[in-house]
């Protein structure tokens, strides 16, 4: 019986030493994964995912605290890419964080704008041009559609306008005609 104990403790000690050395030898610092996740996110910094911006959300995903389906601007395509990268199951977008909308751009109604610069401070990507008491306007090419400027505006002169397709950005449609013959399922 004693020899059994001796043998087991001997094995345990030898292995403990080997692992201790290995842990020191293979120290790992930093986590390049956050950049990879951040690269997939749409950078609207809109906070709909519950985190103050895309980078914090990426860190939360890498750390495992956040789910991959909390980003409405990223949409289903973004979730599919995240699931692909992290090898996790694809989950549809969670309604709690909002619904996927077509790309929209903020437009300031220049009749009502009073030049209070609140929206300029709120815009995460500096897409609004203007100065105190001067007319403000949104540069549509820079606006990411995060809707953060709509709330702070005291006179509610900012509205989200969905971008119409132009001849250059027109997309060919998915050629699969649904084969299912509706309503004729087997009894």
């Amino acid at each position, binding site marked *: 019986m004693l020899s059994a104990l001796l043998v087991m403790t001997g094995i345990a000690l030898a292995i403990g030493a080997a692992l201790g050395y290995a842990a020191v030898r293979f120290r790992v610092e930093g986590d390049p994964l956050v950049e990879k996740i*951040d690269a997939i*996110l*749409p*950078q*609207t*910094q809109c906070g709909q995912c519950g985190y103050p*911006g*895309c980078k914090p959300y990426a860190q939360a995903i890498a750390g495992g605290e956040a789910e991959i389906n909390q980003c409405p601007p990223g949409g289903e*395509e973004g979730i599919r890419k995240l699931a*692909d990268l992290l090898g996790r199951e694809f989950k549809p977008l969670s309604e709690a964080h909002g619904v996927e909308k077509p790309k929209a751009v903020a437009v300031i109604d220049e009749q009502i704008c009073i030049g209070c610069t609140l929206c300029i401070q709120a815009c*995460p*990507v*500096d*897409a609004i041009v203007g100065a105190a008491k001067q007319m403000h306007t949104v540069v549509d090419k*820079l606006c*990411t559609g995060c809707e953060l400027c709509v709330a702070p505006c005291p006179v509610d002169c900012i509205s989200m306008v969905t971008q119409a*397709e*132009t*001849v*250059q*950005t*027109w*997309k*060919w*449609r*998915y*050629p*699969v*005609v649904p084969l299912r013959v509706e309503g004729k399922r087997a009894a």
Partner: protein
Amino acid sequence: MTALRKLFSFNGGIKPEPHKAASTVEPIAVAPLPARLVVPLWQSTGAAALPLVQAGDRVLKGQRIGAADGGLSVAVHAPTSGTVLQIGPQPMAHPSGLLAPAIVLAADGEERWADLEPVNVAGTPPDALRDLLRDAGIVGLGGAVFPSHQKLRPGPHGTRTLIINGAECEPFITCDDMLMRERAAGILRGAALMKHILQAREIVIGIEDNKPEALAAMQAAAGSEAEVVAVPTRYPAGGAKQLIRVLTGIEVPHGRRSTDYGVQCFNVGTAFAVHQALDLGRPLISRVVTIAGNVARPRNYDVLIGTAMREVVALAGPQPDTDRYIMGGPMMGLPMPDFDAPVVKATNAILASSPALFPPAPPEQPCIRCGDCARACPADLQPLELYWFSRARNFGKAQEYHLFDCIECGCCAYVCPAHIPLVDYYRYAKSEVWAHEREKEAADAARQRFEFRNFRQEREESEKAAKLAARNAAAAAAARASADKPLPTGEPADAAPSSTEDKKKALIAAALARAQAQPAAAPPRNTDNLSADTQAEIAAIETRRQQVSPPAGDDAGETSATSAAAPGTADKKALIAAAMARAQAQQAAAPPRNTDKLSPATQAEIAAIEARRQQAASLPPAPPEPPK
């Protein structure tokens, strides 16, 4: 005698029924001048042109009405003299059916040319020549409409061969064939000009061997200048990459410019357009278009850009059962959203289609992976794998199988036994990938601006903190200095402010003084260069203000009320009383606002309100509300 040039071959390709005989019987006719011309601004790969004219301007034939916007764009010209009706969204020759900005011209029938100055080619440096071609609106007329001035940039190792593409392998289309038969000299001259710009060593003209007349005409015109080669007939031998492979054996991969391999390929129509632009100074305002398909008299017409397709097809007598137009050939053509789409620079043919000529798409059956499409693909791709991944929306994998090497020639869909519209899947996948890339670029730019904004905010905070610290230090130093000797300035210096309490009072006092000084010093902002009536308006307001304002004391207090500390409760009552008095006075003085041109019903309503107000005034006055 065709030179004994060694020809190579490319894999795949198909041999469809050519249908070319009918439209090559009669020579090229000039289409009559239409009354209304719609010239789209986006007529080449890359950016749309910027309009140079407004509605109502008179323009001359060949006058530049749209300037190139950036490197990858070309100019647009007025096809005839007339007046600009409007510049706005018009139906486009694009399968999406969307409208796009275009210049609408009403022709005045005089066809007066603008002043054209031919170019002294020898004396002009190549860069200037390229700019001239860009401003003459010269684009590839083979169907890709790529700006030619960009393609005329020689590659790193110089250019060995300039290929002129007369292969024209698409069924029904014969515009290049007729152009070669009738205007061979112009084409050769254009080719020589391009050879000069590219500094190429030899010119090779590739023509499919099913066009003997064109071969003879080009050989007669070429002489020893260029080498005319008969290329075996097989669709898509006319593709630029395929023709380069056949004539020189070089395989240009996707994403690389052919000039990197010392070879460049141009359509015969483009060569003729270069000749017109440089030798005669004429911009690209018209082109040869084949009208064929379900028409009585298929023929080639020299059509002005911007003519409505309906008018041109009408010349060839379309049959009644024509259901839509196809721009281009049956293999790569685009269905037109409606009959009034304008002829653009890319229109090499207009086919009147009918259910008999081009039967509707047979039902799509599942793919049995038989590999016929892989054997027919001229780009040696695996269309069945591309179809599998595009259908499953797995665009990453589709790109791994070289999705973007696909030239959308249609051979795979032509041979597919399951009648799958394969090219639709590849076009869908490509436009999705391009959309993702656009979004990716926008997202990266947004991230950079976001990071810069955070950095700027931190910088501002640190600067403010530094300034505050500096000011505190200065104030502290000043306080210490004032402890040694009393300050002569008007500062209300108290007794030696040793404790922090006194220091704070000093700070407040200083701020108060500065605030009072501000309104007096502040100049009335931007009231200098104003128009006369605004001056009058300001004067009127000033007079009203003088008339209304009670004793001056309150006035000063009231205008800068924001930062004044409350002097005590007694003053407050006086303030309220003054405000009440002023309000009453204002009400009496205020002119009844815009009650003049109102409908009788509103008049009655106002009268009722006035009556109620009078009746309310007679009641004992309600206790004044405490000021908020």
